[in-house]
């Protein structure tokens, strides 16, 4: 057998490992840009034992998107997509607010007894998981195409959220709950802590066990996986359930942060940010996934937004910028394009 030693270079990183080097480079490029052009971007100060600064802010603002990105990555690896996460965010937030002020929608502004934090957290999360499992059931057992199955909840979900709030924006005060959105723990904003915990948890269940490999196998070849005894349908359903859970969590953070439930706007278009983040991160639709890559993808999107805002560019330009960056990272990730590039760069030593 002729074995040729693998040559590694920037244009040709190892074939076996999913390279997160490109999204990482893009992220570093954005940070470098800020280092040069935005004063005090890297400045982190401690106020009352809390960390403040643009970098912390990126993590904090980005927390909801990162959370749903974690769920979306697994769904995407099974070969699906979850369009309903934005709607689940709205439902989860609406339900939490409704639980805190059950009589608000009837026009009664006085609070009753303060609802227990456990209920405010648990009920929306359980409902979010059930909604996610419903998506998974439609996809795995009924055979509905993922984009259609989750589109149903994307449309209906916002309606459900509006029914819960009776079409009003429910504002509330609930100190323990608000801590979820704007509290600090160990000097870090609490949403950031949640992101870190969820990331470690997900990484441990998928990579410290073989669940991750089962997810990848199920996505890459469902039939062959089934013949190998992998419970493909159950795994697929569970990933959607997990995605619902992540969205529910994101909904709680957003609602707790703004102290109001806005069924119309909470989490709107956030599913698209998450999908973009997953793709930037190099996860294959039906196959290998990279959780770290996806999170860097989410950070890229958030840091772009923050950069543009701190530089005083009108926020409406943000969307165009996002599009450009996604296209660029996607292009760089294309192996075909990289091969052509390396061909051009090394055209000298190409045999004629």
């Amino acid at each position, binding site marked *: *057998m*002729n*074995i*040729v030693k*693998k040559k590694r270079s920037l244009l040709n990183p190892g*074939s*076996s490992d999913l390279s997160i080097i490109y999204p990482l480079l893009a992220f570093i490029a954005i940070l470098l840009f800020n280092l040069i052009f935005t004063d005090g971007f890297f400045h982190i100060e401690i106020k009352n034992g809390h960390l403040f600064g643009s970098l912390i802010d990126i993590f904090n603002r980005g927390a909801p998107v990162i959370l749903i990105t974690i769920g979306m990555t697994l769904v995407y690896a099974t070969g699906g997509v979850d369009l309903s996460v934005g709607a689940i965010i709205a439902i989860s937030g609406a339900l939490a607010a409704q639980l805190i002020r059950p009589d608000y929608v009837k026009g009664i502004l006085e609070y009753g007894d303060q609802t227990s934090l456990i209920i405010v957290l648990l009920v929306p999360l359980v409902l979010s998981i059930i909604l996610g499992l419903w998506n998974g059931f439609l996809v795995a057992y009924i055979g509905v195409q993922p984009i259609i199955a989750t589109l149903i909840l994307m449309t209906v979900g916002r309606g459900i959220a509006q029914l819960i709030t009776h079409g009003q924006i429910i504002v509330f005060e609930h100190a323990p709950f608000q801590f979820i959105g704007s509290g600090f723990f160990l000097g870090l904003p609490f949403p950031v802590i949640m992101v870190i915990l969820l990331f470690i948890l997900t990484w441990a269940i998928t990579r*410290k*066990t*073989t*669940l991750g*490999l*089962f997810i*990848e*196998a199920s996505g*890459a*070849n469902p*039939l*062959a*996986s*089934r*013949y*190998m*005894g*992998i*419970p493909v349908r159950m795994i697929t359903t569970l990933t959607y359930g997990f995605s619902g859970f992540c969205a529910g969590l994101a909904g709680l953070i957003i609602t707790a942060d703004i102290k109001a439930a806005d069924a119309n706007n909470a989490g709107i278009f956030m599913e698209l940010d998450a999908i973009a983040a997953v793709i930037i991160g190099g996860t*294959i639709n039906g*196959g*290998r996934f990279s959780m770290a890559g996806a999170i860097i993808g989410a950070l890229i999107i958030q840091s772009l937004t923050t950069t543009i805002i701190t530089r005083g560019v009108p926020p409406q330009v943000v969307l165009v910028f996002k599009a450009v960056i996604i296209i660029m990272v996607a292009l760089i990730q294309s192996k075909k394009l990289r091969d052509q590039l390396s061909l051009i760069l090394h055209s000298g030593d190409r*045999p004629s």
Partner: protein
Amino acid sequence: MPDIGNVLLEIRGLTRSFPGVKALDAVDFTLRRGEIHALMGENGAGKSTLIKVLTGVHKKGSGSIKFEGKEFDASSPMDAASKGISTVYQEINLLPNLSVAENIFIGRQPMKGIRIDWKAINMNAKNALAKLDLEIDVTLPLSSFSTAIQQMVAIARAIDIRANILILDEPTSSLDMAECKNLFKTMKRLKDEGMGIIFITHFLDQVYETSDRITVLRNGQFIGEYKTAELPRFQLISKMLGKELEQEMVSSGKRAEETPSQKEPFMTLNNVEEKGVLFPFDLGICEGEVVGLAGLLGSGRTEVAKLLFGINRPTGGTMEIDNEPVAIHSPRHAISHSIAFCPEDRKTEGIIPDLTVRENIVLPLQSRRGFLRSISRKEQDRITDQYIELLKIKVSGREQKAGTLSGGNQQKVILARWMAMNPRLLILDEPTRGIDVGAKAEIEKLIFRLREEGRSILFISSELEEIVHTCSRVAILKGRKKVGEISGENISEETIMTTLAQEGTGERL
């Protein structure tokens, strides 16, 4: 003999490397007008890679390709086809959701003004298939037909393109004898019309029946070009393997050992039936026994395997394992009863191309243990290395993507996956399809070894020779019905053929 001279295609010093392997190393190949040229070599010898470079699937590394005297460089199979090289690839590359007719004409639809002329498409498709003696409803989706018919459709498409060069990479692997005959007739006709045909197959009989010349590759290197008439089979095989071969390995007819009658039954099927798919049948498989399922394609062979493995469920009858009644309801359940299944269609049912060789091998083992009890990486590596060596799988390493392996090596990975499970019953559905002589002999040896260890094997094959050689009992299926069972001394190609030939012709379905 065809007219010589008149070179159609001239490949010189063609080299192509992939990460980790040199797939082609200075390969020469010459194809003349009006000849059928067999391209021979073991799995991973570079046959398919040569074809893929020629037809623009892969870029060539270095070397020259001249087509009708001019420098030739196809950018894609589509481009190659438009320049006159039409190809049927080893794995069927058609669109299962489209109709048969659409599959034959996609990319070159006859138009009527600005709309597609459906009448003409369906008409022409019918005619194209008629040339191969195949009469089917061309408006049905391709996926509603068997692998064999899909292969015939792929061939019909390639022939209909009317190219100067026709490449057939393992076209007969899922065809039965009558279909092969029709294909060979068509190939001869095309050859007489001056077409050059490159023919890749592992069936030596077919090489000697059809081809004029043979080019042998080994480990990506050019071994030589020979006139078929002047190269005895024996020499051909030793050139492919690169070593002298014991005569008996090639010769057939060595009877499998008799099964002692005192063996314990592992699995027994009584009157098992699947409505509309299989008529009620009985089947018993003992420990340490190789039971063959013979029959034409579509006779219900694969369907029996799918029942045993819980992919489909019986609508009647009873199954027993170790004399206890069971109702196997899923592959997972079958695996828990220590049954393993090597499916016929390795591309869609077997290999996971994006995962590594190691992952492809340990997955079922891991799945049986549950995801929480991971097999340590060291153990995974050990298992993988063991089977790479045992089955002589040609890989650049454990972490090579399974999708980049040659077809035969993918088959070996699937075999390895099930052997690692140490199953009590191993169902092999066409395990030697598209596999070279050397690997076939290895698989045969493995089957014998598993039998010695007291494992049961259900062996499904279109090659009667293999069945006769390996099985101690053979169930014969015809028209989704079991029409006979023979054992011991009575097993021979003749008895199987006569059983199949009884009551009318051996029509499919």
